């Protein structure tokens, strides 16, 4: 039981990261029907920008995080305004390929600018453990869950209760009708990309700071970010709430598998946990292709 609870803690932390990255996918998908494969790139870039602020400029941790969020939000919005806006009317497929191109750019750019950073990100929470009864939880995991909840909570308040959120929801349903109400659909697109950029930074910073099975500050963070993909398939491509639940489920499933399978079912191999998110994705696609909370018509896409 102790082992279970401590694995649950790890799983929720990893799941919180997936949820943040998945939310970025969903926000962009809802507004523009584009699956943004560059999302993993924003995660990496965000983590390195935090490092840049903290180590190179000595800005302090929180200032660096806010700085990186602002940068990635601006990058996202600029990418939408300068590149994707020219692609309006082109097949969605072409736009998705552009996002893959952007993703491929991130690794060479990051390694050129930062080479191999000597240290990781120095977070205010260290790699200490906290004991709750018999259960040992890593501080970083607690911080990840709390910070994830704050960021996701802020998004949902915006989305549910503000005029901007209402405009975002309306644009997702019918762009032509939204225009007729005086909603600037361009602004909503740019805002969606900005939000995706900002939440990606938080996810990347947490991964680089030691949450989950992360390699520290490295370009391979983008591969971990790609596991948010099973999360959105599970939750539903166009459901922000689904992204959060999907992220948590995938995170917990992955960590639990890693904790139990090597000992209990050695035949599956030690790395089986890395495959589990994709196994879940595969099963969901077979049974319920639009996910737990997605709109059924997404099936046709």
């Amino acid at each position, binding site marked *: 039981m102790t082992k279970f609870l401590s694995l649950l803690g790890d799983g929720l932390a990893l799941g919180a990261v997936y949820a943040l990255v998945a939310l970025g996918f969903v926000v962009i998908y809802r507004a523009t029907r584009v699956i943004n494969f560059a999302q993993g790139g924003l995660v990496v870039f965000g983590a390195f920008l935090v490092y840049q602020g903290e180590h190179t400029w000595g800005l302090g941790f929180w200032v660096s995080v806010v700085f990186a969020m602002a940068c990635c939000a601006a990058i996202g919005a600029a990418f939408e305004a300068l590149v994707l806006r020219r692609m309006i009317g082109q097949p969605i497929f072409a736009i998705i390929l552009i996002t893959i191109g952007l993703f491929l750019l991130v690794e060479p750019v990051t390694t050129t600018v930062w080479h191999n950073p000597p240290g990781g990100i120095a977070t205010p929470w260290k790699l200490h453990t906290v004991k709750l009864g018999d259960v040992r939880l890593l501080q970083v995991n607690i911080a990840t869950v709390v910070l994830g909840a704050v960021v996701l909570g802020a998004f949902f308040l915006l989305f549910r209760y503000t005029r901007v959120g209402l405009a975002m929801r309306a644009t997702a349903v019918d762009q032509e009708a939204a225009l007729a109400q005086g*909603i600037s659909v361009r602004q909503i697109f740019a805002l969606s990309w900005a939000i995706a950029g900002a939440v990606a930074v938080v996810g990347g910073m947490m991964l680089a700071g030691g949450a989950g099975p992360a390699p520290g500050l490295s370009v391979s963070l983008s591969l971990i970010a790609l596991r948010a993909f099973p999360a959105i398939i599970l939750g539903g491509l166009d459901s922000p709430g689904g992204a959060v639940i999907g992220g948590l489920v995938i995170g917990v499933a992955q960590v639990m598998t890693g904790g139990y399978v090597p000992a209990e079912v050695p035949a599956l191999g030690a790395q089986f946990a890395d495959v589990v998110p994709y196994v879940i994705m595969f099963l969901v696609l077979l049974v319920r292709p639009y996910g737990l909370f997605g709109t059924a018509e997404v099936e046709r896409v």
Partner: protein
Amino acid sequence: MERVSADAAPLLHVEQVTLRFGGVSALQDVTFDVMPNELFAIIGPNGAGKTSIFNCLNAVYRPQAGSIRFDGEEIIGKRPPATAALGIARTFQNLGLFVNLNVIDNLMLGRHHLMKTGFLAGALWLGRAKREEIANRERVEEIIELIELGPYRYQPVGMLPYGIQKRIELGRALAMDPKLLLLDEPVAGMNLEETEDMARYILQVRDEFELSMILVEHDMRLVMDIADRVMALDFGQPIATGKPEQVQADPRVIEAYLGQPDEAAASR
């Protein structure tokens, strides 16, 4: 006694508008005026260009030639949200409601362009944004009263009957406090009872609101009953404009709808 004054300046002045898609002319030299408080109807066979006119008026399409002056401002070249801000509201032929949002949210979106607080203040729910929201919500309640949507307030509009959805769309357009209301087939697909209800609401709007309306409609009885003036379009060109009974009796209009007599004879 006249609601529409003949010597006032027109609210909308459309002149020589031509809209082409590739080699096909959707609209050819379309010219008409709409006066303040006037209920102006556009009729014509399918594909005559009626909805294209609406799409030009709210800047979704950009005509290749001509001029559209609304309340002294040129519309051509503007972006669609700007036309909403100028006071042009529209409903859609096949409904353009936000189906998974409730009635209140749909009508609040009609108020979107009237809300001045910026994106950030709106997002952070600052004091001014909150007061603004409350004021706009009150206006939405007035409209809900007027067109009798009270019982449906919190229901997602996609779940409601078609006739009610058409009415919600009218409500959303009214929530914009428009100077010009574009109604694209407001009674299409409705039964007799629903049609009469809608006609009653349109007349109520005409009498109680300070606005002009352009009505695109196939239901001739409705058009003849409520329109002040009618323009008939055929293949993108106006063929007659005037009082409903004049247009109805115009030989070119009859020809557009029924075909030429000798054509019919020749095909026999």
